[in-house]
């Protein structure tokens, strides 16, 4: 346990190097609008702050320190040059409202990224404005809505979502004013197409699909599904969070999707930063082009300009005050150019190779796969229901014990369909040694579950804290430090 920064604070301590010189007056601001009491921010020296946060950082698992096979999150290597480039003064110092003429460098990079994303997605146009996957989804569904409205096709009030979908999908549909109808999944992981056929109708605004799905399989009936949806007058939305599995091999636009989002913080390796920022560009085919959000980056004889709502009257509008997460887009651009033409496909190849290798080896070790008959895509699911039944050791226990062994846990209990599930995504950047190490750890825990059940159930044992009381956290809500508590 590390003391809170507040507990290291002493009233009146000033870090002078950061106390900028000057004796500024604010006597033109009415007293009634001024703050009376200093905010309770920490008063620490530079050394204390540096030491505290350096130490805190060491308490984290991260890609830079551990194998991190968190399914659906694509925890691949984050190349350091991406960070370096995004931090260049010329990029990091530019004000977003400065004239476009002063931003031709950054705009040219963003435009290049737009074109690259168009190429790999097979869409007609791409907008870089959305700031994460969920905002990309919002943008896409809002465009679908705008499309139907523009055609006065007003009765469409439902978005269809497979039950295996990521939580952001239904949440997004609701934010866009739609009702959500769930579509069940077949035992082989594909969408239940009969159920879909029944659900679909004139009330259908669209279907949101992740392909490969969050179950780690490629939806084989995708062409049929696309026909069904389009036949009913709906549009098809592609959740591209799993694009790593098919990068450079399959283009969503060619699967029949009308609108897609990509998670650059997954497929294009921008850092996850302990929870963001990300970037969730959207791509659309011709019919949705007029509705794309602003600002839009356009090029004309080598000059780049940002268009706003006045230039794009049908646009759904703005998603943020400025131009999305530009610095993240730059990192993705650097990564894309490092991969290049041939590198795109290789990502999918080796991400898939790694997943299928782990699947084969873990199956061999006696673990049960949720979708045995299927190829793994870039990820796959195993279910520990047998282990739970036999020893009481749950997926959660396995996960915590893996931490003890120096591996981050896979995604657990998602998708909700599969009991005691582990969604494992190794990514292409992990080496064979690392995969074998993880497999060995899983085998060890399998043994420990039988021989040292309690030890496994009370894991982790070697981390900064033992298992945390989540129930108490929610019941006795303590989300803000109060001076009195110390």
């Amino acid at each position, binding site marked *: 346990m590390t003391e809170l920064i507040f507990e290291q604070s002493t009233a009146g301590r000033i870090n002078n190097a950061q106390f900028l010189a000057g004796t500024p007056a604010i006597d033109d601001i009415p007293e009634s609008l001024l*703050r009376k009491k200093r905010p309770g921010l920490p008063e620490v020296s530079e050394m204390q702050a540096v030491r505290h946060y350096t130490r805190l950082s060491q308490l984290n698992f991260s890609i830079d320190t551990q194998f991190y096979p968190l399914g659906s999150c694509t925890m691949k290597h984050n190349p350091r040059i991406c960070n370096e480039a995004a931090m260049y003064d010329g990029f990091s110092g530019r004000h977003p409202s400065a004239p476009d003429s002063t931003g031709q460098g950054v705009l040219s990079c963003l435009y290049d990224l737009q074109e690259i994303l168009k190429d790999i997605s097979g869409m007609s146009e791409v907008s870089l404005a959305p700031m994460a996957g969920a905002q990309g989804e919002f943008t896409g569904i809002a465009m679908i809505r705008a499309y139907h409205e523009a055609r006065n096709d007003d009765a469409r009030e439902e978005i269809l979502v497979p039950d295996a979908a990521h939580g952001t999908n239904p949440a997004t549909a609701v934010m866009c004013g739609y009702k959500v109808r769930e579509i069940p999944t077949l035992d082989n992981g594909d969408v239940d197409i009969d159920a879909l056929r029944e659900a679909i109708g004139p009330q259908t605004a669209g279907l949101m699909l992740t392909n490969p799905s969050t179950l780690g399989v490629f939806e084989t009936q995708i062409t049929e599904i696309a026909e069904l949806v389009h036949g009913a007058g709906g549009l098809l939305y592609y959740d591209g969070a799993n694009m790593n599995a098919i990068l450079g091999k399959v283009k969503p636009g060619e699967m029949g999707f009308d609108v897609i989002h990509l998670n650059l913080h997954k497929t294009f390796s921008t850092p996850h*930063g302990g929870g963001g920022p990300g970037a969730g560009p959207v791509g659309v085919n011709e019919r949705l082009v007029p509705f794309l959000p602003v600002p839009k980056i356009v090029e004309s004889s080598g000059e780049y300009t940002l268009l706003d709502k006045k230039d794009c009257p049908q646009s759904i509008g703005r998603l943020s005050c400025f131009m999305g997460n530009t610095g993240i887009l730059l990192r993705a651009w650097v990564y894309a150019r490092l991969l290049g033409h041939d590198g795109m496909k290789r990502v999918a190849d080796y991400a898939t190779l790694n997943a299928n290798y782990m699947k084969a080896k873990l199956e061999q070790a006696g673990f049960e796969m949720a979708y045995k008959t299927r190829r793994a895509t870039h990820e796959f699911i195993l279910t520990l229901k047998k282990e739970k039944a036999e020893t009481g050791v749950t997926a959660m226990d396995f996960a915590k014990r893996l931490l003890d062994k120096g591996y981050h846990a896979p995604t657990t209990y998602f998708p909700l369909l599969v009991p005691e599930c582990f969604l494992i995504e190794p990514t292409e950047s992990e080496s064979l040694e690392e995969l074998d190490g993880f497999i060995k750890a899983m085998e060890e825990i399998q043994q420990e579950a039988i021989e040292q059940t309690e030890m496994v159930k009370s894991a982790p044992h070697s981390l900064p804290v033992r298992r945390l009381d989540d129930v108490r956290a929610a019941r006795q809500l303590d989300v803000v430090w109060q001076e009195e508590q110390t």
Partner: protein
Amino acid sequence: MPFIPHTEEETRLMLEAIGVRHIDELFDEIPADLINEKLDYVPPALDEAGIRRLSRKSADADGHYINFIGAGAYEHHIPAAVWQIATRGEFYSAYTPYQAEASQGTLQLLYEYQSMMASLTGMDVSNASLYEGASALAEAVLMAVRAQRRKQRILMPVSIHPAYRETTETIVKNQGISLSNIDYASESGTIDMSQLSDELGDDVAALVIPQPNYFGALEEVDALVDLAHKRGCLVIAVVNPLSLAILKAPGEWGENGADIVIGEGQSLGIPLSSGGPYFGFMCCTQKLVRQMPGRLIGRTVDADGKQGFTLTLQAREQHIRRSKATSNICTNQGLMVTAATLYMSLMGPAGMAQAAKLSHANTRMLVEKLTAIEGVEVAFNSPVFHECVLRINTDVDDLIRAITAQGIIAGKPLESDYEELKNCLLVCATELRTEAEMDDYALHLERIVSKR
């Protein structure tokens, strides 16, 4: 292969273990007609030296202008330690802290961040971030409507950042929420109280109060809050967090304080970066906490009774609540919040107050120098914080072009958003602007204005 460690031999061994001959076989469930490896645009790979050369060239092209724009993003001093530490691999390359035991670093930091923001805004709780300021306002509007049940109207002063209104409109319009404009008084540049009073009907879920507003002008926040509360409507404060080092905390506005406080966090140690990534913050009263969107970190204990931190109230969120979640937000702006937490710790309350004061005093000095020029005057008569609207008797677009050519970004022109503010310029000089730079600006401006 860049970022792929496999040797040919290893690939062979792995394929053998899987029982296939070639990687392509692993894609055999994909309908063959969908496979398309042709990329027409993507250029061949660059090596690291190549991409460095290219991106440096692009960055250098955007060069180093002396910037006098604020307008929602501010060029403040950022201690060197902020980004050297925020980009440590353990912060930079970790995911959202789902496995709490393996993420105590990020979690404790976020708990500290929440505490700092709550204290700065004078509110009970803070979430762990939203995307940025404008979309945070949209989330606040949705939250207010949820909390107020059937009330679907929001009062939006025209004096708020226009992009905030646009963004909110985009995000909330599909849920049947309406945003009503409240004009500003033309002399003061602040909310027109009489129009406001008229609009504050039963159907109003919340009043949005920017402080300072887009024009830099300071609103009469105490009166506004009390009026709104009297009419049974919530108050959403939109503030610049750095300003709160010296301005009254929204939690203390009027008798009961604001209900929800949001804003753009960029002023807390985040570089301008052509617009992002920044981060939005949101604080609120204890009463509203379950309506909050976004991550929330709680302090709890582990199996040994030792203090630890974990994600909490996850039942509000999409990954648990799905279509009934308070928002669809998932990935937020963790790394930016890491930087902001470092910023606040390194600056401390005194350092932040000094930065705010210096920015204010510098803007005042700038305004004095510029209004000393004939044909340049202050547009509004309210007190301001570190930003000010000037009216100039020349074509402002031409002026901006001419001054840009001198390496100076003159300010944000307002006409495209406010017809009535023809040839008005919103200017700001943060603590980083020197008097010499201001003199330079004044010199060029004078030359242009007098040439007219």
